[in-house]
């Protein structure tokens, strides 16, 4: 099993709901808390597992704005695990989720240097590295209603631009949508083999207009032939 996320760039409106829901769940979850520094001051910052970037492509007026949520890709070749000197970082064989054992982590940052996706964050207060857990403490928790055993970001996403599932299972909904929509992984050339996939914006066929009637402007309005319609 390879659990991961599929993110639909056609419908992601960039609202940051996923980022905030993640922060909310995880600040009291297994790597709690997610510290915030200078929360009411000049440069507020903090630990987030999921951040939404905004890009523009093309030039005015043919430009497009792309909203791009990024979090841990739960890579098959997770270099962040390989470089970890304490064994705190590990990839679970049963579902591919990459986690950090907070009791073993010494906050050396090697993993964040190894990660090309910027997924790992140092919590300066705890002195440990923290990252997306795919809400491992939600998705298997049988005391939660079944439909809520999803990562917090997926539950929250108002545009349903985030899908969660097993990307190893070719028949899963996430695998199907990746096939149908031409989903892709980020920076495959680095060979980290990210699990998470992105769906590109859809392109739509033009709407035909040749089939419409052509009334005449030439005739004056009061000469228009009325149609008999009962009111």
């Amino acid at each position, binding site marked *: 099993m390879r659990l991961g996320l599929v993110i639909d760039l056609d419908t992601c409106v960039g609202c940051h709901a996923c*980022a905030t829901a993640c922060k909310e769940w995880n600040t009291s979850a297994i790597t709690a808390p997610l510290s915030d520094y200078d929360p009411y001051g000049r440069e507020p910052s903090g630990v987030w597992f999921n951040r939404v970037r905004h890009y523009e492509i*093309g030039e005015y007026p043919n*430009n497009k*704005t792309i909203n791009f949520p990024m979090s841990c890709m739960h890579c098959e070749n997770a270099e962040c695990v390989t470089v970890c000197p304490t064994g705190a970082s590990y990839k679970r064989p049963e579902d591919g989720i990459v986690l950090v054992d907070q009791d073993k982590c010494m906050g050396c940052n090697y993993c964040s240097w190894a990660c090309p996706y910027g997924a790992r964050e140092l919590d300066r207060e705890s002195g440990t590295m923290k990252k997306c857990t795919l809400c*491992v403490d939600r998705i298997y928790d049988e005391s939660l209603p079944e439909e809520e055993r999803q990562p917090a970001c997926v539950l*929250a996403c108002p545009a349903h631009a985030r899908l969660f599932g097993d990307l190893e299972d070719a028949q899963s909904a996430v695998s199907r949508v990746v096939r149908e929509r031409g989903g892709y992984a980020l920076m495959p050339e680095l060979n980290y083999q990210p699990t998470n996939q992105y769906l590109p914006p*859809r392109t739509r066929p033009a709407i035909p207009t040749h089939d419409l009637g052509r009334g005449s*402007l030439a005739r004056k309005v009061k000469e228009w032939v009325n149609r008999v319609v009962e*009111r």
Partner: protein
Amino acid sequence: MPSAPPFEDHSHQEIKYSTCYMCACRCGIKVTIEDNKVRFIQGNRNHPINKGVLCAKGSAGIMKQCSPARLRNPLLRKPGTERGAGEFLEISWDEALNLLSERLAHIRATDPNKFAFFTGRDQMQALSRLFAEQFGTLNWSAHGGFCSVNMAAAGLYSLGYAFWEFGDPDWDRTKYFMLWGVAEDHSSNPFKIGIEKLKSRGGKFVGINPARTGYQAVADEWVPIRPGTDAMLALAMVHVLLSRELFDWEFLIRYTNAPFLVVQTPGVAGDGLIYRDAAGQPLVWDLQKEAFVNGMESSCHPALFGEYTTPDGRVVKTVMTLLAERYLDPRFSPAQAARICGIPADTIERLALEMAHVAFKETITVDVEWTDWAGRKHDRFIGRPVSMHAMRGVSAHSNGFQAARAIHLLQILLGTIDCPGGFRAKAPYPRPVPAPGKPAKHSAPNTPLDSHPLGFPTAPEDLVIDDNGRPLRIDKAYSWEAPIANHGLMHMVITNAVNGDPYPIDTLLFFMANMAWNSSMNTVNIQEMLRAKDDTGEYKIPFLVVVDAFHSETVHFADLVLPDTTYLERYDAISLLDRPISEPDAVCDSIRHPILELDRNVRPWQEVLIDLAGRLKLPAFTNPDGTPKYTGYKDFIIRYERSPGIGFLAGWRGADGSQSLRGEPNPQQWERYIENQGFFQYHLPKSHRYMRFANRDYLEFARDAGFIAQAEPIVIELYSEAIQRFRLAGLGLYDGPQPQDPVDRERLATYFDPLPDYYEPLEQQRIDKTAYPFFAVNQRPMMMYHSWDSQNAWLRQIIAQNHIYMNRAKGESLGIHDDDWVWVESHNGKIRVQVKLIEGCQEDTVWTWNGIGKQSGTWGLKPGAAEATQGFLMNHLISELLPPKAGERRLTNSDPITGQAAWYDLMVRITPAAPGEEGVWPTFENVTPLPGAPAKPDVLRYNTRTRS
């Protein structure tokens, strides 16, 4: 290999359902509580509004709840200190309410209009309105005058419903969605859900907006329009549709006033009014009888086009004829619109034709039998799956009423009104066009008003003016300056009160409105006005009461501060009598209830209002023996009936809770709501779900539920006779009140057009556009829209500084680079801000995020917070008054029809700051901390899992 991490210990957790209030959307929330702290807020998947999802604001509710800006005690300005100095004493609630009720009792006994009560972003206006009505002051309104009254009024004077609260695109069926202007301000989650539904079905989303941000990012086509020109674009599309005969004949004849006859007697009284019979029924020309007949008779066959002569010799033309004559004119050609809107003519033509294709060639049906108003059976609903939405981007211009009407006209021609795939109404709408109810006019000591302070004028007789034509309301709503100001003009209250124009007041009360900062235009001057004194040393606004939950800039100017709770700490009714949350398929309302225990000496404002009403012995709140009628808000909501069986909450009515919508009070009503996850929904039968303006069964249901007075068809108005009556008054042709001031006459004659038209926004007509070449608008980012408090520790990490955004190529052509400091100047002032160059900005437009800038020391922020040192307001550049004109009194910078604040009409020039000129300007003094304000932590480690 480590074992799986442990799951959460749920044994100390409790799940409670309530309604979000992080914005105006009012989503259902499922809240996990742990030791009186919020563990998790998620969307309630059973809730009709958000169906389980939740936005960034909703999840950040935790940070609102632990904000250091929360007020803690009632505060009184320290005697002997100046207003705005920020010196306060903490006082008890008894002291606060005694002080206020004594003052208000005196005002009520002498001149109730000296109490002005204006409420901001609240959603409990039915109660605050009832309080004002019972108090007897005309001076009440909510914030719609600077929000979106143009949009609401245009809808109610055309369709009987409007965008957002009263109507929605048919997200499950629409194939073509056109979004006009910024929309992230309202309908947060439903919109995102809807856009995804549309796109996953392969529908097309067209965004018309000067900026490509927010929802526009995922639009399939972005149409960068010049701000304030939307009416021209819509009417050019109307031109294309008419010129190709692409409109819905049957729809126009059956359901609109298109076949009604309009009297054509230019220069004579009665010109432009509907030709009516002796009983007042509109007449049409019957094609079979070849005679004038009552247009409300179902059996007639009206001519859609034509000119006829009445027996008394007057020429009459059908509305549709007037419409065609108007919009077929080359003035509305795509080529002409291209010059005004900045959109290529072929794009305008193509968009119109695309919509016509979808409406007429991709027609859908819903195969459900229904009966029309005349009793005719239909075997299906016919759907023209084109839908639209517009909100503040169209509304906040001084031509916004007519622009929103133009957008509705386009929808009506396409036949997309309340049909499958179109723009659907939400209960209790639609209502008759125009809506019934006139604004109250008469105020007398110790006497309730004889109607609501707000209403829907249809003729000059309905204006709230005295015998000399002078305004009777402090905001001059319903005066000649803003005749159909259905939401009041809150943005004019401070200016008018300080100028004593039309009269001075004594006590001004603001609830949840940041009028000393980002909710007012002209912020610097407004702050000066709040401090202004008369010759005797008395403040020109003698007593300012501010009710809020947080330490806003306006709190700083208060004489008395009444602290409110957060939305997780109180009871609220989100009522059909107020700001409805219905969905097109269901009548809905909801509640909030306290899910956290209070830890401060604050009270829910609604409890305080009921308490004050009892102290003042307002009749509706008082028993015959003079004792208070209600023990509190909960009791009031249960027992108050607007009319027999109709109360604030529609669910579980009747003594045993078995009745919906109508029924006697149920003492257990709150308990039933709480058991049912905080909301009620009544699913409409399938035959009631479309064409409600003419759907007999629905209209009868709506009458029985108290939504409308009579089950009569609602005629959609392409042509507004009500508007024409005001125009006649301006032309001196009205048999009734007429304005004396030439400027009023000219404004009525020019802008009160019974057919929607485009005119250049008023401020832009008065300024030198070569000196101020850029349109300047602002909007809120999605993660903060209506969340009002960017002190939120999580949300402010996403954005705590705004920039002025401009088109990259345009900026570079002016020698401006990313992050440069520039001066932005308007006719009213200047600001120094930092630039970001982007592609997604129309070339002649600059914009910024509003409400990011804060005054240092407010909102629980530390001095030096980014919002105060790098964030800024564009408000300084905007005047609440139009630029002066010789020989003319000063006029509000508002729509001349509705009084909507025209804060999107701004034009500016941009010049690079001199070398060394850096930093935001103007800056404001740091606000003194409030007594007992908590320390602001340097590090926040929020965590409810600390028990173990």
